[in-house]
């Protein structure tokens, strides 16, 4: 147990970096995901095709490979802003299609009658999205979106293997130093992850309940 208490500053630093990765790549993925989702439902065929290909390729690439690319191949191609930004780029790209799919399923989850009603009172594509579909879709989208962020929290651990010092990196470092107390150390790190994931999960459950009442 004392290994955990002794190394608490290390864990806290790791926790901070995990949160940083989560927030930065989460917001990045949200922006990129909105763009991809918009392309996927756009009336222009080539945009739809591009977004579909992008989604399929990124979703079928392992995260480890994506982060290997950003952490090793980009510096090899002489683009090296440091490992933390590189990890943020990798996580952003990897998470964006999942965000886009969550958004799209939310838009598809709005009953088709709503869209028909909006169209039949003469709203344009943009108007019916902005005033009728999106306000409803956003609500339905929040629980799956939070689930994407929970997954992202867990995925930040992979960045720890690519030279970013976050919780998983802290776990590796401290277990190397204190091989005698591996179990408490790893449980402590797990607890830090659970603080984020369980909180987010609770929020998702609460929102889901509220939305269920609404409908």
């Amino acid at each position, binding site marked *: 147990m004392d290994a955990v208490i002794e190394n608490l500053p290390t864990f806290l630093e790791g926790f901070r970096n995990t949160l940083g990765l989560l927030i930065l790549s989460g917001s990045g993925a949200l922006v990129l995901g909105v763009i991809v989702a918009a392309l996927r439902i756009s009336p222009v065929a080539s945009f739809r095709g591009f977004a579909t290909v992008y989604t399929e390729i990124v979703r079928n690439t392992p995260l480890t490979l994506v982060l*290997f690319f950003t952490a090793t191949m980009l510096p090899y191609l002489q683009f090296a802003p440091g490992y933390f930004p590189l990890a943020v780029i990798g996580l952003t790209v990897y998470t964006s299609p999942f965000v886009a799919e969550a958004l799209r399923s939310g838009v598809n989850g709005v009953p088709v009658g709503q869209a028909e009603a909006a169209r039949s009172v003469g709203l344009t*594509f943009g108007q019916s999205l902005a005033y009728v579909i999106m306000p409803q879709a956003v609500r339905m989208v929040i629980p799956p979106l939070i689930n994407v962020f929970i997954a992202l929290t867990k995925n930040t651990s992979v960045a720890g293997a690519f030279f970013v010092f976050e919780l998983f990196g802290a776990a590796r470092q401290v277990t190397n130093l204190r091989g005698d107390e591996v179990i408490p150390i790893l449980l402590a790190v797990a607890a830090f992850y659970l603080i984020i994931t369980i909180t987010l999960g609770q929020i998702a459950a609460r929102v889901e309940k509220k939305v269920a009442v609404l409908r």
Partner: protein
Amino acid sequence: MTSVLYDAPGPKARTRSLVISVVGIIAILAGLIVLILALGAPKMSANGAIQPGLWDATRWDVFTDVQVWRTLGNGVAATLQMAGVAAVLALSLGVFFSFIRSADHKLIRVPAAFVLEFVRGIPVLLMMLFILLVFATGSYWAGVLALGLYNGAIIGEALRAGIQSLPRGQREAGLAIGLTPLSTRFRIEFPQAFRQMLPIIIAQLVVLLKDTSLAFIVGYSELLRVGVRNLPDFFGNRYAFSFFLVVFAIYLAMNLTLSWIARIIARRSGSKLGKAVEPAPEPMPSGASAI
């Protein structure tokens, strides 16, 4: 492609959309070509030596060596082996978890909920490290056990959601004809839940195949380690990018094939289901775990 979101385009809109479409395709292609040319351009390294571009033959000649392909093949086999064993483990654990999670007895159900929440809430990678260090299993079993446990927990939750979404009459009917609660679950509820959740389960198995690459980090020599670490180390850094592209292509081929099969199965099992057990309109309850 018709959508209620916009009108069926008239001649004017059709031309406009065609123009935008063509312009879009050209812009995307131009971007790709610029990227490819930029990667192919010879570049100056720090000490002033000029290196050949990435598409130069000297960076690709290594792929004429049969041994390289054999080594990559071994990597693919190692990845598939880990995925296969972990998938079997995940499926059996999933069934087990769904049973104890929806047990009638509180003393079983509540601890099970805690354990599942714990397993689903921490990264697979941390679990691999835990198993590797605490049980000293070696990297292969650390990977298999962690992947099996984690995906088993997710499949278990999916199955439980499936059992819960069944009409109550199913269970009552089973009990009424004199089956024990356990065999009601086994013979009446479970087969329906399994079928209903099959798309989610298969999607999760695709995720599992992708996640075998995490074992790279704990030191198992699967496709990723063989392809982007061992082979470039052996043949020289010059080939690093070429090996990366080839490994990327192999992963894409494997995962896209599996996703495609998953989609076919999902469609087939979907059409067989009756109205009574139609999946909830929500995009999968444990959706996010599908990452």
